């Protein structure tokens, strides 16, 4: 069979992404028709920039969701004749095409990029959320109480921020250090924060109705504690707390470490942002009113200050997912953490960069994918900022 022309390649790609187009069209149609009832999310559809950003982000989210339907070949199948072949090359048995060419091992570039979106879409938002919970749980009291607590926590945050990120990654992710269990111990501390956050959140809200409060907090502690123990514990590592039968979250060791290091790097910045906002908001009248009413500090922090800080935090959340994506790519680029076979974009760029001048497409395609996702998140954040300022 002949190689495909560029037009045919584009047509095939468009056809492959069909489930994504349908899902995108449905999302946009529904959101635009109900936009007046959807709050800030609905207002997003008033701004062109926000809509473009949202579209790009959702494109990758749906790609990750429908990845098994979109990708054409297995991500690890190697066909020796197709090593470094240009886009549109036909398979040797004539059964199909590598529409975006083959990489240095003869794997399909298109399928790998599609599968790689799964890794990014799974890790980046979740890691960012954890970083936010850590940052909020520590930033609120630091800003609200001030004094020694603030000095101490700010010093720690500045310390982590002064650490060169790449050095930190190299120190945390190397096999020798992983063997000592250190990243897992950091994970033990970091992952306890979301649990603490949820408990504080519900406890401060329902303190006046002890019966309901006890039930709720107990439930959170039971389910959250189980999830926590099962997340941090992994068989055959230093931290192995639950018996195998109860351990329902199986995170491969290196993904956990990537996760921990990304949260660790992001949390201090979130802490600083939250602390800054709290310092500003705590001088407002409604905070004094709550204080006069005799509300307890955690209620004021979590139910008076935090909801009023949501605007800047949502915007920063979007930006930070983009930044986390960049960090994940950086880890992959240096071959740290994720296995070299993993189809994630950073590792693929790393594998392709050595042959860049001969066969550029294996690195070029994931590079474009990563750039478009981060660009989408940035535009989305910009749109949200613009719309939330209009209130």
């Amino acid at each position, binding site marked *: 069979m002949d190689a495909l022309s560029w037009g045919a390649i584009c047509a095939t790609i468009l056809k492959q992404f069909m489930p994504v187009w349908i899902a995108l069209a449905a999302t946009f149609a529904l959101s635009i028709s109900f936009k007046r009832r959807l709050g800030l999310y609905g207002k997003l559809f008033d701004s062109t920039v926000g809509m473009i950003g949202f579209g790009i982000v959702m494109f990758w989210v749906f790609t990750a969701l429908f990845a098994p339907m979109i990708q054409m070949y297995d991500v690890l199948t190697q066909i020796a004749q197709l090593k470094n072949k240009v886009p549109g090359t036909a398979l040797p048995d004539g059964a199909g095409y590598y529409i975006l060419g083959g990489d240095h091992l003869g794997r399909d570039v298109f399928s790998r990029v599609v599968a790689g979106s799964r890794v990014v879409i799974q890790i980046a938002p979740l890691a960012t959320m954890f970083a936010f919970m850590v940052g909020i749980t520590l930033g609120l009291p630091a800003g609200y109480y001030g004094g020694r607590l603030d000095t101490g926590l700010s*010093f720690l945050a500045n310390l982590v921020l002064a650490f*060169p990120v790449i*050095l930190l990654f190299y120190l945390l992710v190397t096999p020798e250090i992983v063997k*000592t269990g250190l990243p897992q111990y950091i994970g033990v501390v970091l992952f306890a924060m979301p649990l603490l956050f949820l408990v504080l959140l519900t406890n401060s809200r329902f303190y006046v109705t002890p019966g309901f409060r006890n039930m709720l907090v107990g439930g959170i502690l039971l389910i959250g504690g189980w999830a926590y123990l099962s997340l941090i514990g992994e068989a055959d590592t230093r931290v192995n707390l639950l018996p195998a039968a109860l351990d329902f979250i199986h995170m491969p060791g290196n993904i956990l470490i990537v996760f921990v290091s990304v949260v660790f790097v992001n949390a201090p910045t979130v802490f600083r942002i939250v602390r800054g906002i709290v310092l500003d908001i705590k001088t407002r009248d409604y905070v004094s009113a709550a204080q006069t009413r005799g509300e307890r500090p955690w209620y004021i922090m979590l139910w008076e200050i935090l909801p009023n800080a949501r605007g800047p935090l949502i915007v920063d959340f979007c930006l930070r997912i983009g930044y986390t994506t960049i960090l994940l790519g950086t880890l992959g*680029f240096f071959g740290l953490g994720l296995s070299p076979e993993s189809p994630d974009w950073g590792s693929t760029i790393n594998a392709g960069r050595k042959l860049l001048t001969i066969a550029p497409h294996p690195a070029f395609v994931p*590079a474009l994918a990563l*750039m478009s996702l981060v660009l989408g998140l940035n535009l989305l954040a910009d749109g949200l900022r613009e719309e939330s300022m209009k209130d």
Partner: protein
Amino acid sequence: MLKFLGRRIFMMLISAICITFVVFFLTNLAPNLEKVAKSEAGSRISDEEVASWLEKNGYTQPLLKRYGEWLGVAPGWTWSDENGVTTGRCIAPGSDPVTTPRYCGILQGNWGNSNVFKSPVSTVIGKRLSVTGVLMFWVMVTMVPISLLIGVMAGMREGSRTDRALSSFSIASTATPEYVSGVIMIVIFASSVTGLKWFKGTSASDVSDITFQNFFLPVATIALYGIGYIARMTRASMTEVMTAQYIRTARLKGVSFRNVVLKHALRNALIAPFTVIMLQFPWLLNGVVIVETLFNCKGFGWTLVQAAGNNDIQLLLGCSVIAVLVVLVTQLISDIGYVFLNPRIRIS
């Protein structure tokens, strides 16, 4: 002002000590030391031999003591074997143990020896830093004026077409990390795909061979990522200044737009970007490591990757000292500069 300065410098030293201690702790964990022993004394040695090698080389002392030795505030270890030959941290092979100084650490200028490059760490780092220094110089020379210009032009008339175009450009450039823009630029300017072989995709060369062809792509790659961020900050600061009362007064007085921007707005709008540029250094360090790996340019970032990848403890410690100092000193400069530029800030 002096008190503020003293406190900042004191905090900076404390941070430096804390961070270097953490790096020291992480690089001196047991598995790392075992690897060092095996690479120095042969890879097939038994566990007992590893233990005795570590003891002979002062690695079995308490961590704090060894950190003190490395820093140069504790006397170096000595070891006398059964033949009465004394070796020690500060005793160079073949020299007389009696005449050597007791202290030898970072503070005394002894940075240890690199296992990978087989030469003193200070010479390795010095040589590599000069390459990176040249790279950084050109990055700064291109990045700062371009980003300030873009930011001021965009913020001058908020919402105009120029603003839209320049803001989109800066968003796009912040969304393109170095390893992406580097790949794209190599593909466009240095590969056979487009046929434009204007620049070289690698700059595996010494300081002596700095040419436009070699250095353009690495410099452009690092600068591009920084430009977007600084430009956005400058734009934000510029739009804020342009809505200030005194600008309106100047406009109503009949001062031309050009003069308002150049004489009234610019000075105040450039205070915030100064801090941003200074705080950009840690990110530049990141970019330097990525770009030097991508373009195979043998500078500081490349050395750091080599040291980390080959478990070269002394070199890694040396690199981290430099990196941490760069970060902390720029933070200090940005704090001082902020106070200096903005007389409204009073810090008691």
